[in-house]
């Protein structure tokens, strides 16, 4: 408690320096938060598009209506399946042909009947999907199964690269932020060298000298993190409608903000970052 009050006294006595410090740290952490937000949305995109979303079960020509219905019913009961819809050859022709008059005039028997499965997002990974498709393929009324794994694998790969890039950028910015915090605390220390000198002179133990600076670094870091998240949140709210229309139309998802858990982690991380940066600065400057 005494350490905190001494740290607060340091903050009060150099309010202007501390405000500049918090602003600098907030700017650095804002970049980290933006990278984290990008990573979060890429993650959401990955969950939305990277996982297998649908599966097409091609029915054999001699499948009876009872068999088809029994199969559809059985498939819709699977935990990985959200919906199972029977598509007749005529419907398949209409979907494939679209505005093409030639295809539209082709015989319906050329288009196999299918059961289109919509899968539960996140419930099906590649291995489970392979097992599922293999089981379905062995059924009598089924001629083939399409899992679109090639496409999802490609999407997964692109999104993984995006996530990795966001992670690397976040890490680089994090290191920069740590350097910023360290230098900021060092500046603060420089302004308070007389105080440190006096403390050492009157026999303060090294921990007594260091502890308020570490607490101050933690306060600085967490304060900067709060400001950064607040700034990012304000910008997010401001541009949300524009992002909604873009992401909803192009990607079929709504933009997401950092979760409460992430925000708490970010503020705690900011405090840790501040304390670490402070420890680095203090170690270099206070050889007590």
């Amino acid at each position, binding site marked *: 408690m005494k350490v905190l009050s001494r740290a607060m006294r340091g903050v009060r*006595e150099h309010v202007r320096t501390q405000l500049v410090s918090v602003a600098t740290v907030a700017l650095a952490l804002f970049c980290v938060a933006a990278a984290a937000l990008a990573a979060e949305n890429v993650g959401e995109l990955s969950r939305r598009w990277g996982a297998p979303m649908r599966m097409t079960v091609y029915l054999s020509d001699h499948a009876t209506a009872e068999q088809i219905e029994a199969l559809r019913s059985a498939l819709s009961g699977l935990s990985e399946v959200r919906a199972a819809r029977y598509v007749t050859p005529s419907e398949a022709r209409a979907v494939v042909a679209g505005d093409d008059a030639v295809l539209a005039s082709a015989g319906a028997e050329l288009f196999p009947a299918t059961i289109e499965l919509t899968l539960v997002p996140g419930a099906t990974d590649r291995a489970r999907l392979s097992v599922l498709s293999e089981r379905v393929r062995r059924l009598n009324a089924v001629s083939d199964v399409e899992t679109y794994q090639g496409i999802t694998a490609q999407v997964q790969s692109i999104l993984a690269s995006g996530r990795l890039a966001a992670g690397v950028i976040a890490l680089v910015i994090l290191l920069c932020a740590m350097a910023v915090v360290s230098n900021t605390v060092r500046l603060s220390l420089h302004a308070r060298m*007389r*105080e440190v*000198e*006096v*403390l*050492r*002179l*009157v*026999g*303060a*133990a*090294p921990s*007594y000298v260091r502890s308020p600076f570490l607490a101050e670094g933690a306060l600085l870091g967490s304060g900067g993190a709060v400001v950064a998240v607040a700034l990012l949140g304000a910008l997010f709210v401001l541009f949300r409608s524009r992002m909604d229309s873009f992401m909803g139309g192009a990607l079929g998802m709504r933009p997401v903000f950092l979760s409460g858990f992430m925000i708490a982690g970010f503020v705690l991380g900011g405090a840790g970052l501040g304390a670490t940066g402070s420890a680095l600065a203090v170690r270099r400057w206070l050889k*007590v």
Partner: protein
Amino acid sequence: MGRPRIGAQFGRAFRPEGHFDRSAAHKPILVLDGVVKVFRADAPVLRRVDLTIERGEFVFVTGPSGAGKSTLLKLVYRSETVDEGRVLFCGRDIARLTPESVPFLRRNIGVVFQDFKLVPYWSVFENVAVALEVAGMPGRVIRSRVALALERVGLAGRGEDLASVLSGGEQQRVAVARAIVNEPAIILADEPTGNLDPVLALDILGLFEEIHESGTTVLFATHDRALLEQSPQHRLIVIDDGRTIEARKGLRAMGGALAAQRAQRDVDDAVATARLPL
């Protein structure tokens, strides 16, 4: 036979646990034994300095600028370490203290500097109280002892003032209050009047005299001859070219005018002697 291990004999003095060796009370408060301090190999600052200071003494250390007065004091409060020799404080070799023990040594030494070394944005009270706070004293004790110290230096009732608004003389009084507030065994004064006008300088010297009269050992470094002449009754050590010369022992019994003459002559003689090739 090597040199006896001082640490083994006085191992419990100035330990973090706060235990003190009782026998330390009967030893000279400060002994410099063959002390050598070198910053530049071709010009040692101190060359085999031998000096013993007994409890309750008031000792002036003088010499030209750069002679090593401040270095000598720094060796005592372990801001610097000796290159050769020993510095025994209450019988304990300071050079052999662990870094963890150094703060405990400093709590037993009051130091006053030419530039006061006050924190300008702290109040007078805070600047004095810090010496007790670092030792973890309770607030009630701190308040009463700081009030007493401020009263001793003539600043009673000024605790709330910011250090930065005080005059030079008042700032130095605050520094003296900080040095005496935890009743240290010795006070080191490094040119404490260097930034003050002659009248204030004598005023501050008077303050140190009062502190000394209450039994505290004072080691007062100055090159101000007026101060040396003002207090001819005190022992005078001259440092020149890295060596110490005992310029005079206590002159308490001598009259004022004669003592002043003697003081002047002693300083001149000692400096001249120090410059002779040995």
